[in-house]
C-alpha cells in the first residue's frame, strides 16, 4: 500500500505549506486584533489547530487500532503507530503554544485546569503507547497490545476529562462551539485556513512516518534474510 504514494505525498506536502502560509498571512496581517486580548489572541490561530489535530490524531489511531484488531492488516498498525508518533508532537506544540498564550492572559504558564490536565494526560497516554511498542519484541504481539491500549485510552479519555472537569476548571469556553461563533468572521476565516493547513500537514506527516516505519521493517527483514543466506 505504501509504495505507490509518492506523488500524492508530495502534493499533500505542498498543499500543507501553501495553506499554512496563507493561514499565517491571514492570521497575522488580515485578521483584526482581539477586542479584549489585543495582538496576543492571534496565537489562538495556531493553538486551536494544534489542539484539534492532536485529538484528530488520537481518533485516527483509535480507528486504525479497531481496524487492525478486526482485519489484522499491517497497514492499519503502521498508520496507528505513525498517527500517535505525529500526534504527540502536536500535543506538545498545543501545550507550548497554550503556555505562551497563558502567560500574558492568565499570568501563568501552567495551571491545573481541567482542559490542561486532560490534554497533558492525553500526551502521557500517547507516550505510554509509544513506550509499550518500543519495549515489546514480537511485532504481531506489539501491534495487538498497542491496539488494545489505544482503544482503552480512547474510551477512558472522556471519563478522565469529565472527572477532571468536575474537580476544577478555569479555561475559557471553546472558541468553536456548536452554539455559534464567539469570534469575528475575519478571525474565523484565518482560523479555518490554519486548521485546514494543520490537518493536511498531519495527514502528510502521518503518511511519511507510516512509510518510514514500513520501510524500516522491510529493510530489517531483508537484512535478516541476507544474513541467513550468507550463513548457508
Amino acid at each position, binding site marked *: 500500500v505504501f509504495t505507490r504514494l509518492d506523488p500524492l505525498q508530495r502534493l499533500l506536502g505542498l498543499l500543507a505549506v501553501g495553506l499554512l502560509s496563507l493561514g499565517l498571512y491571514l492570521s497575522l496581517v488580515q485578521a483584526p486584533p482581539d477586542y479584549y486580548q489585543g495582538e496576543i489572541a492571534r496565537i489562538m490561530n495556531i493553538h486551536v489547530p494544534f489542539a484539534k489535530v492532536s485529538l484528530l490524531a488520537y481518533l485516527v489511531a483509535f480507528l486504525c487500532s479497531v481496524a487492525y*484488531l478486526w482485519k489484522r492488516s499491517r497497514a492499519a498498525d503502521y498508520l496507528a503507530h505513525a498517527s500517535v508518533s505525529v500526534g504527540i508532537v502536536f500535543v506538545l506544540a498545543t501545550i507550548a503554544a497554550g503556555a505562551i498564550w497563558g502567560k500574558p492572559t492568565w499570568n501563568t504558564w501552567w495551571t491545573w485546569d481541567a482542559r490542561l490536565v486532560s490534554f497533558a494526560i492525553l500526551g502521557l497516554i500517547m*507516550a*505510554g503507547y509509544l513506550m*509499550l511498542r518500543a*519495549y515489546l519484541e514480537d511485532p504481531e504481539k506489539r501491534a*495487538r497490545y498497542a491496539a488494545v491500549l489505544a482503544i482503552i485510552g480512547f474510551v*477512558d479519555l472522556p471519563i*478522565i476529562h469529565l472527572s477532571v472537569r*468536575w*474537580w476544577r476548571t478555569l479555561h475559557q469556553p471553546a472558541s468553536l462551539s456548536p452554539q455559534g461563533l464567539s469570534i469575528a468572521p475575519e478571525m474565523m476565516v484565518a482560523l479555518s485556513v490554519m486548521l485546514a493547513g494543520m490537518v493536511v500537514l498531519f495527514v502528510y506527516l502521518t503518511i511519511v512516518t507510516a512509510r518510514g516505519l514500513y520501510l524500516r521493517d522491510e529493510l530489517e527483514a531483508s537484512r535478516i534474510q541476507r544474513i541467513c543466506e550468507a550463513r548457508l
Partner: protein
Amino acid sequence: MVAWKDIRMEVRGREQITSMFFFALLVLFVFNFTLVLDSRTTELLMPGLIWVAFCFTGLIGLGRSFQSERDNQCIEALLMAPVGKGAIYLGKLLGNFLFMLAVEIVLFPLFVLFFNLDVSGRILQLAGVFVLGTLGLAALGTLFSAMTMQSRAREVMFPILLLPLAIPVLIGAVQATGGILAHEPWSEFAHWVQLLAVFNLIFVVLGYWGFELILEE
C-alpha cells in the same frame, strides 16, 4: 478458581502481601518525615496521602501479579484449562483486589493511629469507598499487568500505563474519602461515590474485553 489458586499460593508463600505491606509501611513513615503535618494540614492532605499509599502499594502487588505465571509458564496451563479467558481475568482481578484490600485493612488503622484521624461512625462508608477505589485500580491494573508481563522494563512500563488511565478512580476516591474524613453529610460527596461505581463498571468491562485480546495466541 483462579483467585482461589492465587490465594492459596499467597497463604503458603506470603511473598506478595508481605512485600506490599512493608512497602506501605515505609511509605507511611516517609510521609511523616517529608511532610510537615500539623492537625490542620493533616486534615487537608490525608485523603490524598491515604490513596497515594494505597495506589503505590497496589502498583507493587499488581505489577507482580503475573510474574509467577510467567516464571513457571503457568499461563499456558491456565489457557489450556477449560475456562474462558474472561474467567481467568475475573479470577486474577478478584485475587489482586483481595490482596490490596487485605493490605489496606492493616494499613488504614495505622494511618488512624499515627495521624490521629477521627473516623468515628464513618467506618462503613470509608470501607465502601476503599472497596470501590481498590476495585477500579485492580480492574485496570490486572489488564496492564498482563500486557506488560512480556515486555522489557516491565517494572517501569506498568505504572506508566496504569497511572494516567486510573486518574478518574484516584480523583473519585480521594474526593469521597476527603468528604468522609471531614465529616461532611453524605449528599456532599455521594456523586463521587456514584461516579466511582460507574468507572469501575466501565473498567471491569474494558479489562475483560482487553484481556481476551491480550492472551490470544
